[in-house]
């Protein structure tokens, strides 16, 4: 069967979903990570446990939530705990195998900035901030990051590190006091990157179908490295695309109800 043509954003979500397995207990960020995690749950990773920071454990939403605390998450969860319990027992307690994060900016060692662009005291752009991410980045077994490429997002140097990735590279993450694996995979709309085993610098390991090396280099703010062997990311299957589009369509319908004049 010929796979239908996927948009770069759909390819990113599908590639991100494939990174999860049925045995994972996953702390889900909102937006692209949430779509990927739910796609995984509805395709190959039926047993995956999705946890949202609002306290919902084992959520199985039929409609993608807009926020991390939509009622749908609580309705379908195995149980719902308080927010202090979520962060102290479940996250800090080491019960989560994968944290799925997005971000505004990332550097070559997969450190993330979601705080400010420009000086902290006189910001050019004030971003929402860290939320759960600074500790998700530390306490989960490993971290997957999903974000679309672009030179303003994939930057040479972060002005602010909100959440630790691999620090300055090498063993600097461990030396900073974070023994967990940290970011092991960055899934973008053009390619998949993994940290080099020695330097921990992000390295392209697979290109999405039809994407060239020049294209990826052109969307990255640092001189991007490629692994010795670069694979082609398998295109989305019919099943993956159908389920993803259905999820997005239901989300659009559920959240775009016309607001009557207040």
């Amino acid at each position, binding site marked *: 069967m010929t796979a239908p043509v996927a948009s770069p954003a759909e390819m990113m979500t599908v590639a991100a979903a494939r990174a999860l397995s049925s045995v994972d207990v996953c702390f889900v960020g909102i937006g692209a990570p949430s779509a990927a995690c739910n796609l995984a749950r509805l395709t190959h990773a039926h047993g995956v446990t999705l946890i949202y920071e609002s306290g919902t454990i084992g959520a199985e939403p039929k409609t993608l939530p*807009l926020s991390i605390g939509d009622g749908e998450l609580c309705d379908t969860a195995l149980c719902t705990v308080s927010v202090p319990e979520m962060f102290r027992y479940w996250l800090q307690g080491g019960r989560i195998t994968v944290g799925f994060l997005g971000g505004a900016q990332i550097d070559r060692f997969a450190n993330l900035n979601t705080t400010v662009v420009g000086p902290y005291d006189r910001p050019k752009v004030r971003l929402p901030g860290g939320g759960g991410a600074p*500790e998700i980045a530390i306490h989960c077994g490993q971290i997957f990051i999903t974000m679309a490429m672009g030179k303003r997002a994939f930057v040479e140097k972060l002005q602010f590190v909100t959440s630790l990735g691999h620090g300055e590279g090498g063993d600097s993450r461990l030396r900073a006091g974070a023994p967990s694996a940290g970011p092991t995979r960055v899934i973008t709309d053009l390619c998949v990157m993994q940290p080099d085993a020695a330097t921990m610098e992000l390295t392209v390991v697979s290109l999405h179908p039809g994407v060239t090396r020049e294209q990826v280099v052109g969307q990255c703010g640092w001189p991007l490295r490629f692994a010795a062997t670069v694979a082609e990311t398998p295109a989305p299957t019919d099943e993956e695309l159908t389920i993803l589009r259905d999820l997005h369509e239901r989300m659009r319908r559920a959240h775009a109800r016309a607001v009557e004049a207040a």
Partner: protein
Amino acid sequence: MARFQSLAEAVSENLHCGDGVAMEGFTHLIPFAAAHEAIRQGIGDLTLIRMTPDLVYDQIIGMGLARRMKFSWGGNPGVGSLHRFRDAVENGWPCALEIEEHSHAAMASAFEAGAAGLPFATLRGYVGSDLPKVNPSIRHVDCPYTGERLATVPAIRPDVAFIHAQRADRKGNVLIKGIVGVQKEAVLAAKRSVVTVEEIVEDFRDEGPNAVILPHWTVTSIAVAPGGAYPSYAHGYYRRDNAFYIAWDAIARDRATFLDWMKTNVLEADPEVFVEHARRAPNEVAA
């Protein structure tokens, strides 16, 4: 001992200019009706405390009633920026806003420490993050047993906490269901507390032994405010109006549009409008 009051009385008696106030609710049960009453009464110079400032603090900030904010994630969930918050931080409009920024784990622990009567909270947090460089209240302590270096944050002790809950009983005990956030901790950490509720019921006999209940002697004031969490939601009553959260982006982006909206929907409105809001919100069986 909880007193049943009108929302206007509950707000004016418990919230004063210059207070540290926590209006909590993690996406769910956000006390909008109470916040709008506070805005109408023009109570200003506030230190706002809240993990996720949400639209409710965007509105207070945009009306110039906040001097300072302690928070951990200041966005419109799933939509983008809080434009009034951004305008205050980036341009000082309508007045400068001093910020004290944390992570969720630290804020949650700080509320817990407040409820527990401890001076500070410890956590294994902020490792490798720049947040401690810009927030001097994030400090560290060596564990006296293992020597491990742990982060600390001061306990949160608000002058007053506002929460919205599903029900109170006749005695003034309060029941919270669903995503319970840090509301229990916020009330127990605060010197005074105001709880708005969807309704008053006879008793909680059918709620089961582990229901989240705040005994009446932990609550200062209770006001009945049906729909009072709209456009957030009250589990079992009405759903989150995600369409309004999306629409807020355009309302709040422009200063004049925002002020017009606030004039019509807050300054010239009364708590009764929330009944109508909640009626129009997506209901529990929809979708």
